[in-house]
């Protein structure tokens, strides 16, 4: 599973730091963890939660999908309130924030944007909040499934900003690949036209015409 997964990705995942983390984890736990074992690791993670506040919300169960390619969204929860945002919690705004990818270690209600940081076993991805590209549900689901693959791949890694930023930069590379393949396009109706992933250009082909910028 792991090998097929890594061949599917065209990006190089940084293996050095990750294997180091996994080794520590293994020594501490004294049993081997493989990418396929999900249930025991989940319990381990839940026990070790530092800020254990009693949650009245039922945790959304996901389908245990052995491939890990399909995105497994958590069921939407009701009565979500912003919790653990204040300074006593050490400013634990564990996040990765770039222009198109925002990853937070919390549960964010998609309707009210309430930010529940006590649920530290969840990662939320907010895709392109500035609307630089035009998204439809297919392309969104592609990015979400890639995100799911990455999260499954980084199983056992420590929940730090470093890990989240590794995932975030991989997703940015994937968005760039989608753009170069023509699956997503720049949104010309946005307030600013930055073309932050490269100006639109034409590829060299059989014609004698030199490569031009389609837009100056």
């Amino acid at each position, binding site marked *: 599973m792991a090998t097929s997964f890594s061949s599917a990705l065209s990006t190089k995942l940084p293996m050095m730091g990750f294997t180091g983390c996994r080794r520590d984890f293994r020594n501490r736990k004294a049993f081997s963890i493989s990418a396929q074992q999900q249930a025991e690791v989940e319990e381990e993670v839940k026990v070790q939660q530092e800020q254990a506040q009693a949650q009245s919300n039922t945790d959304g169960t996901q389908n245990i999908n052995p491939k890990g390619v399909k995105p497994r969204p958590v069921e939407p929860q009701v009565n979500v309130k912003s919790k653990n945002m204040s300074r006593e919690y050490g400013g634990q705004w564990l996040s990765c924030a770039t222009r198109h990818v925002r990853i937070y270690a919390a549960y964010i209600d998609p309707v009210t944007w309430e930010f529940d940081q006590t649920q530290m076993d969840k990662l939320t991805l907010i895709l392109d909040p500035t*609307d630089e590209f*035009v998204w439809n549900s297919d392309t969104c689901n592609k990015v979400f499934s890639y995100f799911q693959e990455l999260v499954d791949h980084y199983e056992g890694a420590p929940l730090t900003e470093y890990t989240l930023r590794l995932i975030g930069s991989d997703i940015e590379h994937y968005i760039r690949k989608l753009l170069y393949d023509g699956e997503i396009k720049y949104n010309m109706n946005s307030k600013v036209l930055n073309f932050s992933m490269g100006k639109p250009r034409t590829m060299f082909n059989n014609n004698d015409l030199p490569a031009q910028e389609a837009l100056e």
Partner: protein
Amino acid sequence: MAKRSTRVVLILEYLDNKKNIETVMNSIEFPLFDRTTQNSVISTTLNDLSNWSRLSSLWPLLYGTSCCFIEFASLIGSRFDFDRYGLVPRSSPRQADLILTAGTVTMKMAPSLVRLYEQMPEPKYVIAMGACTITGGMFSTDSYSTVRGVDKLIPVDVYLPGCPPKPEAIIDAITKLRKKISREIYEDRIRSQQENRCFTTTHKFHVGRSTHTGNYDQGLLYQPPSTSEIPSETFFKYKSSVSSHEMVN
């Protein structure tokens, strides 16, 4: 309006090129032609009034990370006064509507910058000031921690080159931003509301204890070595260096 006419020009250019060029990378999504925008005198006057009121009192956030802030700060003084343009520097992002990113943005600073930008209320504008915030500037070749351009983090309206740009150049950028604001169309602004592209999943990461407890980790504090013990590494190091020296001779 000027904005609509430039779009028409760009579309015509592309249609000409399309006959010759087969493949286009990074393609763009064209706007719809059948936009029903009113063109009455009253709505354009109101539009101009709202644009004028916003461009005449752009309040910038007092933000600066490195050398470019010196030039930005000199604008506050009497020589290059920017209060005459209506700019009053605000310390809180909640009260600012312009952020002049003055200074290099590193990877450590990047989330804070994005957070500041998110805290500013709409309508907000960004001027990327200086070479570091446009493409990474002098740090773009070898730096391991500089973000190459602030438009990887926040959307930028005006790029202001210079290292650092003179205060007169900053005023020029502010003037260009004012001209850009004067061309805005109110209906475009309210039409482009944010969609929700939010996805939550569970992870199996190892949730460790937070290191921000306020206490120093005792293991990291310097312990002076007691003189009775000789560390074994240095002992063997000296021994091995002596032996190699003998072998060379």
